[in-house]
């Protein structure tokens, strides 16, 4: 073995535009493809939400490109459905795991690629097909579905009869989600196999960066949860097209027409959906937690406080995530005894989340903080995660849920944790890893402006939303004029909507910075952040096999900052002990 690592023979890099950038098996290209797919999805998703906000404030106003000019209630509900679906699946389940995970997992563990590169490529293109199918739902006869991203039956299961968009639109939705399930399962397979078998010499599990642990637990959740959604989706599809009654009971009457179905259970759909749906939200946040830990440690130049506890906490969150799904169903007609059991488990999952928060604070304690843009977003992540997580404590109790279920309180809660905290994780990851991916730095001034606008803006949008919910603001309402007690809440809606317009506009700064820096950003070296993990020992961007033939071995944990006795304030993972400079810090 050489002094710096060992050589491994890898296949030649591909040539030609198609093989290099389109149908590539290189995990880095695939990661970037997922990243840009998620970026497209988030822009579409944000536009949909802007339209929703606009409609809530001015329901009668003309919207230029809509048929008929004024948004109908059906169109509003289809926006709600498509916004949720696009964001949860094509943004939050894509960018954190398939995007950044694909790009950086192999490099951080010292591998030349994922375990199954061709399967990886297949996963991306199936995801892309799923994306196209979802977009197609806007253009089919009668438009996109109106049943929400949760697609409860019988609204979603009976077909055309239950409402506009429930014909072809709902079918395209099911097709899209089913394809997405398949792609995700294949992706999870790749992640787990890679993590288990392809770590570099010396890279024990307990020396992996917390980003890798995040991707690991997320992949296990994905593997176990998406199969259940796929099963549910198939049964739902059959109910709609083949006359089966998996979810449809007897006696359904639409416009005075008795439906032929019999023997099914609407609650069964909810159980199947939420058995998937709850782990799904942890799939959305765990990679972000990994990134937050990683960035916090790197930019405050101190090891992560309680690495082992962090690993245990992530695994506990993952495991417990499978036994809490009933908290979405407290008032669904489920047994109140089951409800109580789910409530206890849900409160329990708050414990590992709290541990992580304490450990983040512990990491910052006694440290030396550098306020680069990735760090700003990591700090923002902690703040937003605490805010969003604590409102969960109310929702976890069925008695209190009587008051808060299906109100804007719930919407505030999940947007803070998923829609903002998780996104901040992605922003932190983008600013942090952009130099490595593209060989250039993003502009820090623009990054800071982007951060402050988004941080303040997000709080201005979603904190007031709790109050809207508390006073009885019901979610998924296309208009508020029918309910008298909702009228006085309009000022709240106005405030949130204006905050949303400003915050969404501020994202243009990020988009500009991203694309401009691709070509014009300051050229980045191998390790602009003086970080310790393996991706920073290779060139920016890395060569096809990640390490130019010289694969690293690992001699220490991932967060060796300011270790007493070392001269530098960081020790890369791959540096042999004999090569670590000793003495007083310069």
């Amino acid at each position, binding site marked *: 073995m050489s002094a710096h690592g060992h050589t*491994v*023979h*890898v*296949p030649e890099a591909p040539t030609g535009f198609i093989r290099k950038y389109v149908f590539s098996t290189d995990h880095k290209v695939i990661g970037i493809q997922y990243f840009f797919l998620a970026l497209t999805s988030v822009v579409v998703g944000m536009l949909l939400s802007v339209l929703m906000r606009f409609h809530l404030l001015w329901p009668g106003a003309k919207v230029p490109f809509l048929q008929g000019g004024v948004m109908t209630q059906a169109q509003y509900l289809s926006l709600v459905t498509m916004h949720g679906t696009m964001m949860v699946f094509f943004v939050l389940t894509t960018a954190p795991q398939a995007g950044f995970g694909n790009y950086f997992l192999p490099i951080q563990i010292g*591998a030349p*690629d994922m*375990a*199954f590169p061709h399967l990886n490529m297949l996963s991306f293109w199936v995801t892309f097909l799923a994306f196209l199918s979802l977009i197609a739902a806007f253009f089919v006869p009668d438009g996109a579905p109106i049943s929400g991203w949760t697609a409860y039956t019988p609204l979603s299961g009976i077909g055309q009869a239950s409402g506009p968009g429930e014909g072809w639109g709902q079918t395209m939705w099911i097709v899209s989600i089913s394809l997405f399930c398949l792609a995700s399962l294949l992706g*999870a*397979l790749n992640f*787990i*196999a*890679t993590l*288990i*078998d*392809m770590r570099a*010499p*010396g890279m*024990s599990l*307990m020396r992996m960066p917390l980003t890798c642990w995040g991707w690991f637990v997320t992949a296990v959740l994905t*593997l*176990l949860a*998406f*199969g*259940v959604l*796929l*099963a*549910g989706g*198939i*049964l739902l599809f059959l109910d709609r097209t*083949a*006359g*089966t*009654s*998996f979810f449809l009971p*007897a006696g359904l009457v639409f416009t005075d027409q008795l439906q032929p179905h*019999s*023997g*099914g*259970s609407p609650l*069964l759909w909810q159980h*199947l959906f939420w058995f998937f749906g709850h782990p799904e939200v942890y799939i959305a946040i765990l990679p972000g937690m990994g990134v937050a830990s990683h960035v916090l440690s790197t930019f405050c130049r101190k*090891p*992560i406080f*309680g*690495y*082992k506890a962090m690993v245990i906490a992530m695994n506990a969150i993952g495991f417990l995530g499978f036994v809490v799904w009933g908290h979405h169903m407290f008032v669904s007609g489920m047994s109140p005894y089951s409800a109580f059991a789910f409530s206890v488990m849900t409160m329990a999952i708050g414990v590992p989340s709290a541990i992580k928060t304490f450990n983040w604070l512990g990491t910052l304690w006694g440290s030396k903080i550098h306020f680069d843009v990735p760090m700003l977003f990591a700090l923002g992540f902690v703040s937003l995660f605490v805010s969003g997580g604590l409102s969960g404590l109310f929702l976890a109790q069925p008695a209190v849920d009587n008051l808060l279920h299906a109100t804007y309180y719930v919407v505030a809660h999940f947007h803070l944790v998923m829609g903002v905290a998780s996104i901040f994780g992605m922003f932190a990851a983008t600013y942090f890893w952009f130099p490595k991916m593209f060989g250039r730095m993003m502009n820090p001034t623009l990054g800071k402006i982007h951060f402050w606008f988004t941080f303040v803006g997000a709080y201005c949008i979603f904190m007031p939303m709790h109050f809207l919910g508390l006073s009885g603001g019901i979610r998924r309402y296309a208009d508020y004029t029918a309910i008298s007690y909702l009228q006085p809440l309009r000022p709240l809606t106005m405030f949130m909507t204006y905050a949303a317009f400003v915050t969404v506009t501020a994202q243009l700064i990020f988009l500009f910075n991203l694309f401009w820096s691709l070509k014009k950003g300051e050229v980045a070296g191998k390790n602009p952040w003086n970080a310790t993990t393996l991706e920073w020992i290779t060139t920016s961007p890395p060569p096809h096999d990640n390490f130019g033939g010289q*694969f690293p071995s*690992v*001699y*220490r*944990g991932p967060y*060796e900052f300011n*270790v*007493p*006795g070392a001269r530098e304030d960081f020790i890369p993972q791959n540096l042999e*002990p*004999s090569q*670590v400079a*000793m003495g007083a810090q310069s």
Partner: protein
Amino acid sequence: MPEAVSDIEEPAVALLDGGGGRPPDPGFGDDGGAGSWRPAGTPQSTYTTGMLVALGGISMFFMALVSASVVHRGMPGSDWVPLHPPSILWVTSALAVASSLTLVRARRMFKAGAESGFSRWWMATAVLGVCFLSGQLLAWRQLVSAGVYLASNPSVGFFYVFTAAHGLHLLGGVIALLWIGWRQSHGWRKSPGISPGTATAVAALYWHFVTGLWLFLFSFFLIGG
């Protein structure tokens, strides 16, 4: 030198794991043995890991369907009429078991280096798989001609869904067997990639899983499906 190592690796502060300093373990990409075929990139053991993980995911899918079926059966006031499985399913089940046995035989031949023996028993497995699928299709035919359709009642619905889902997975297995059989007679790609030994092992893992899955589903139908 050792003191310097310990200075860095174990500061006096109370700590949890995170330091380290053990010499690196042997890496991947080296099958470490006397074998002349050295794959690069993905280690052979990874294919086995991948298959086991895949089987985990597939199991969750079927478990979801099984749970849904159990819920339906137990629903108060449900019109669950247990389906009497067509008798041909006893034949197909026997075929499934036979196919696993031929597969075991084929792998023994492979390990002994008996090329033509391997080929014969390997193909026999694939053929038995195809016969199984034909038998399943016949079962469907029988149900339809007896007026029992997908939408007739939930137990029938689940029966069709289970047999279709299982059949699709088995078809995938047949395709894999054919591909491996073809490769074995026409030569494997050099490196990197899956080795013949690993390919047959991993395919066998999948195949036995699919057989076991069928036996489980069949028993499920028999005890009250």
